[in-house]
């Protein structure tokens, strides 16, 4: 639980509290939103034209003084913040990629899972929290990937229940991916 009351603290502490609170709820907060909140609540002092810079400075100070506050940004996108006390970097990356590039989101996750555990990734997971893509969006991504040179390592396998799993050939051989997909989808229930 985020334990401090924001009204009792300085603007810096209040923003840190806000970031933590959002992280606990599974959300990032953008630099722009932080600045807007600071301005709306008159938490910055000085000439109006200097307020945005003051806000930037305050955010830098917050990061210096709170080791758990982490900045993350997708290429060409606005910076977002999260607290590592309440959110993992892996989860934050999903949220940031979700905002910018669904193809990369899917491909990165599939590659990471294929390399790390190793295991294929069930397609249905992209329709669930925190991805929240629609079925059409997911299948649209798969179609685009099939035609994109940089995604040729992302392949599909299907369990005997008919469910689709994605894997990266950079890390998993097709037969191995097929076996692991069948194990997760069917084998675990048959071998309780």
């Amino acid at each position, binding site marked *: 639980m985020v334990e401090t009351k924001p009204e009792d603290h300085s603007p810096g502490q209040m923003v840190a509290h806000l970031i933590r609170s959002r992280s606990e709820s599974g959300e990032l907060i953008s630099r722009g939103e932080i600045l807007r909140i600071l301005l709306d609540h008159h938490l910055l002092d000085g000439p109006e034209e200097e307020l945005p810079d003051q806000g930037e400075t305050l955010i830098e100070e917050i990061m210096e003084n709170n080791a758990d506050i982490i900045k993350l940004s997708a290429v060409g996108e606005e910076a977002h913040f999260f607290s590592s006390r309440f959110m993992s970097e*892996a989860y934050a990356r999903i949220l940031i990629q979700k905002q910018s590039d669904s193809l990369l989101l899917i491909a990165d996750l599939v590659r990471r899972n294929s390399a*790390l555990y190793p295991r294929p990734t069930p397609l249905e997971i992209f329709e669930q929290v925190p991805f929240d893509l629609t079925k059409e969006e997911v299948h649209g991504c798969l179609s685009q990937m099939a035609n994109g040179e940089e995604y040729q390592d992302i392949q599909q396998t299907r369990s005997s229940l008919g469910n689709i799993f994605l894997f990266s050939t950079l890390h998993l051989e097709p037969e191995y991916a097929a*076996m692991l997909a069948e194990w997760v989808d069917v084998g675990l*229930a048959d071998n309780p």
Partner: protein
Amino acid sequence: MKMAKYGGWAGKILRVDLTSGRSGTEDTVEKYKEVLGGTGIGYQVLWDEVPAGTKPLDPANKIIFATGPLAGTGAPCNGRTAVTTLWPTCWPKPLVATGHMGGQFAGELKYAGYDGIIIEGRADRPVWLSIINDQVEIKDARSLWGQGIRRTTLEISQQVGPETVVAAIGPAGENLVPMSVVMNSVSHSAGGVGSVLGSKNLKAIAVRGTGSVRIAGNKDEWEKLVKFHLSLLGANNQHVVPNSPQPWAEYYNPATRWVASKGRRWAAANPAIDTGSCDPHELNRLAYRTNNAAFFLGELAWRYTVRGNGCTSCPIRCHTMLRVPSVAAKYGIKEVGQNTCSGLQFGKAFFKNFPDGPRGQTQIEACMVGMNLADDLGIWCNYGQMQRDFQKLYYDGTIKQKLEENEFKSYSWDKYEKGDPSFLFELLPRIAQKQGELATVLGLGTGYVLEKWSLSEEEWKKDRRLMYWKMGHPKHHANEDAGQCGVIINTQYNRDAQNHSHCNFVRNGLPIDVQKGLAREIWGSRDAVDAAGSYTPMNPYKAKMAKWALLRKELHDSLALCNWMGPWVASPLKERGYRGDDTLESMLYSLATGDKKSAEELDLVAERIFVLHRALTIRDMGTKELRTQHDSIPEWVFRDSNDRPVYTKGTIHLDKDDLNLALDMYYEEMDWDKSTGAPSGETYQRLGLAKIADHLGRKGLLPQSRGEGKDVK
């Protein structure tokens, strides 16, 4: 009043002779401290009191319900009772084995003042045993005989009081059907032992205790230790990674039973409950992590989930309670049912197909019908082997061939083939009542089915889909879990191995690199574990892991901790590098009892218990040649459906020579003779079992010399 020297133990074992109607007590610590409790007491009693050659249903056989020093304390996951006896489905010759039930029986028995009950003899009429603290009475059960487990439980509870815990058999046990259970607290059963109780005319044991379990150590330290233990818990089977991305989680793995997530709701609760993201530090949300109905039956099960149910002092609640309104009107059964794993899937597992697919409504209804019938009639599934056998025997035409035409036609096979759950009303009551050839044969257990119908065990041993291992029983977490380690474990028992130490580790959901890091700390090398389906040749560290897994199982079964949850060597805590604590059992034991033992010292006790099981097996088989005559591996382990070479990624089959080496390394790790697979006299001596060595020596059942490995049978 003089305080007992040790805490933990209640201090007394209750002995009930049903032949004479007499009961008495013995001092637990004085007689059984060196084997702790649970299976340890069970094996010891069988060794001391039940001679070789006794049959399971003879009055001379005994059945031992034993808990352990941690049952009824505040230690997490302590609700286990081991039920040890000569095993009716062990084929071709009954040998020692144990069933394990959770629920509330173990704690209540401790509160009544007992660590265990030894049941012997045979009553001359149906009876039930009433235990209310030190008041022990054998009561007339003629009005209960023929009743299901639910009504029996209800009627006895009405007589004794609502807090009473009743362990009862159903008609299957009464009718001496070997595939039968004893069950307490609605759904918590020990499989395989119902007919032994039936043969003794013992319908039920009702326990009510108003005492407590004394903790010998400092109470603050105890509280701190319990909190520490809770902090290391994952979800069911100690899966420490959630199965979908959670804000707090560095990892997620769809293979785990940690299924809670924001938006996943126990929708049949009133009001519905959102399971939430379940940060591992929020110990008050531990019970939301697991929903085994959703894990086994799919997303639809969330709609019907009321809550989790479970055992004394266990926050995991692995028995998911479902409310499925449609089954009341369709099948005339209760709309509420609960169970876990194989028990949950009891009805579903008979069918090959369902009209709406494998994850639809009908499979859930089949589960509800199956639970309703099996958990009342008291039928055992033998880890799903009854259902796999049934499918095989029907679809290969054996059933039609073996039955008289009239009997065959008495079943609605069209319903069966269509996946209509109402078919179970035709089959399961007949199994419990031994009505007809098919039902009677199915109730015998696989080995005796094969014998009765002159079928080849070799055929069962070749077919991986049947999961059959040996001696009438299936594999239970074999080469699919931890490769050679799983295979070794499955060679060791006289029923399915029921060992979860190894699979709880390899299925915990962590990335393979993290698992390997933990493996290095626990078993001395990263090479002790392989990634699922990416196996490497045998090495000594895998043998160490196998020994560890076996000893921890016996330790848990004797302390009364749950081996479906432990050991706790991995945790969900990133700040601990996902480490658990391999000394947890010894810390709990030492503080609870006051008998300070290190993890190594307690492992030695576990080894004593396990070797006692080995000695009983040798004595009752009448041979020391266990390597060739007992520790066998079915042919399907060596086969791959696509003829891929061993150690190819994506296959879990293993090499015969490599498994010979695995047994060599394992026997060496156990300090057993490699040629026979039998413990040596020195091993028995080292474990304080010199008298057993003397006995076996006199019978010619000690290995003469250490030899080289023989071929795997």
